[in-house]
């Protein structure tokens, strides 16, 4: 059932640019790419927040690290996506491994604060990187090169590459969550003491989960750098971490498609409301309030209930 739904949505997403092209609304293709990139980033946060029970308030650090990896490599003359995108994943994952190794020794509010502090340190680090634009950021000369006759400079091609990557990542996430690793991580979220007491080195599992999520966020960052043609320290600011967290809460904490739904709703609301008022965040705030008060499981939870209720 769920898989059929996912395949249906995927087919719609594949057909979408054709419709946009038909009605000459190619702007929306680029907008859809942006949503998909944020969907990937938010899903990676959901992996640790929703499934791992680790409330990280510094996820933008990994998004930004991935983006900067691509931008800096391009600045140094390396523009192949086959090099810079995997590197964005690994550099971000490694960074997450270091941050996680320290942060995961704390719990609760302290964990939230220490991840925030690390992210802010990264933010100021990139501000001080004068060689790569410092506060002003860094332009990308082109989009990354993928070969095979594909040119990412075309928004249409870029959209399909983003879609393929996001879909693949979500599929991998689903496999991982149902496999041993994901089941162990979720059990640790539910009862860490008991997991220790039956013999699991829980710290190690949480750390690996944290690093994987960091890597996935880095990959989203690599795509975002390409999408924007520009990177700046703003990508790492704490408000970005907040945005990702809001997306996850809106969409559904601990639901596979929570990050996706959250990214869609957040960015569409932003786009629609900001056309009317500069105070669009007020509308967003109200939506968030309604979710937190009346639908703690987010939109994915509401949908799941609706599907279950109809049966």
């Amino acid at each position: 059932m769920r898989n059929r739904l996912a395949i249906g949505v995927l087919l719609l997403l594949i057909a979408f640019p054709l419709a946009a092209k038909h009605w000459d609304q190619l702007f929306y293709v680029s907008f859809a790419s942006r949503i998909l990139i944020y969907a990937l980033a938010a899903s990676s946060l959901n992996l640790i927040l929703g499934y791992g029970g680790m409330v990280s308030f510094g996820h933008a650090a990994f998004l930004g690290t991935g983006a900067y990896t691509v931008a800096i490599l391009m600045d140094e003359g390396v523009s192949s996506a086959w090099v810079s995108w995997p590197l964005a994943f690994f550099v971000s994952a490694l960074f997450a491994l270091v941050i996680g190794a320290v942060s995961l020794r704390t719990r609760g509010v302290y964990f939230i604060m220490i991840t925030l502090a690390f992210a802010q340190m990264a933010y100021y680090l990139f501000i001080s990187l004068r060689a790569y634009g410092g506060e002003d950021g860094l332009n990308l000369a082109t989009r990354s090169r993928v070969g095979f006759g594909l040119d990412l400079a075309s928004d249409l091609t870029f959209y399909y590459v983003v879609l393929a990557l996001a879909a693949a990542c979500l599929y991998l996430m689903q496999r991982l969550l149902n496999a041993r690793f994901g089941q162990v991580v979720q059990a640790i979220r539910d009862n860490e003491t008991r997991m220790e007491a039956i013999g699991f080195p829980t710290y190690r599992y949480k750390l690996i989960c944290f690093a994987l999520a960091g890597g996935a966020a880095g990959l989203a960052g690599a795509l975002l750098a390409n999408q924007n043609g520009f990177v700046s320290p703003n990508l790492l600011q704490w408000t970005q971490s907040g945005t990702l967290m809001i997306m996850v809460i809106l969409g559904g904490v601990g639901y596979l498609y929570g990050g996706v739904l959250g990214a869609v709703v957040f960015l569409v609301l932003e786009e629609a409301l900001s056309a009317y008022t500069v105070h669009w965040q007020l509308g967003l705030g109200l939506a968030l309030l309604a979710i937190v008060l009346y639908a703690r499981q987010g939109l994915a939870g509401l949908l799941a209930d609706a599907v279950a209720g109809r049966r």
Partner: protein
Amino acid sequence: MADVLLRVDGLFKHFGGVIATDHVHWSVPEGEMHALIGPNGAGKTTLIHQLSGALRADGGRILFAGRDITRSSLHQRVHLGVARSYQITSIFRGATVVHNLALAVLARSGSSLRFWRPLARETALFEEARRLARQAGLGGREYVVAGRLAHGEQRQLEVGLALATRARLLLLDEPMAGLGPEESQRMVALIAALKGSITLLLVEHDMDAVFRLADRISVLDSGRIIATGTPEAIRNDAEVKRAYLGEDGIA
């Protein structure tokens, strides 16, 4: 006499000015069912915490099968063969009985850094979990969500989880806590069935159960072991009577 499985040498633990474990020297031979009793606040749970690795001792040594485990963590000790149950039920409330037990089996079934094959397809794991459910007296309740089990059944699952680790030494912290008479009977039967196959350290307030089950009993008072002996010897020990059982004695 059988080999010593657990030996404690001068174990010491304090919380601020309160001494919870006062240089305890003590040992439990392999295969014995050993009960640890003592008045409230004697330091029984603190001792169990140190033996299981949930708390670090401030001094002294813990030897398990001749190996110093004083510095080993909770999960390392499980792999060495020391497992425990909790006084306050600690299970996976949202998962079925079988899933609970399968996690414990998983912990000793090779690396769980596996990211592809669904856990649900690892049938051998769940087969063993079902066998363990029956051993814990939960046959027929395998697919009930743990949070919906009756209190007594949750206690059985609690013990079952410790059992599922296949440890050589089980530390059971008040398994009868909060059980009605009938539920207690079932728990006693469950523990009695383990006799001989495993070394057991039982902390319990239910004196009936303790004197029925234990091969030997140790009495803890103010962080010190004041007596160790057969149930008969403990029943007649003057110091034990004074410290714990009251002037009137028991039973």
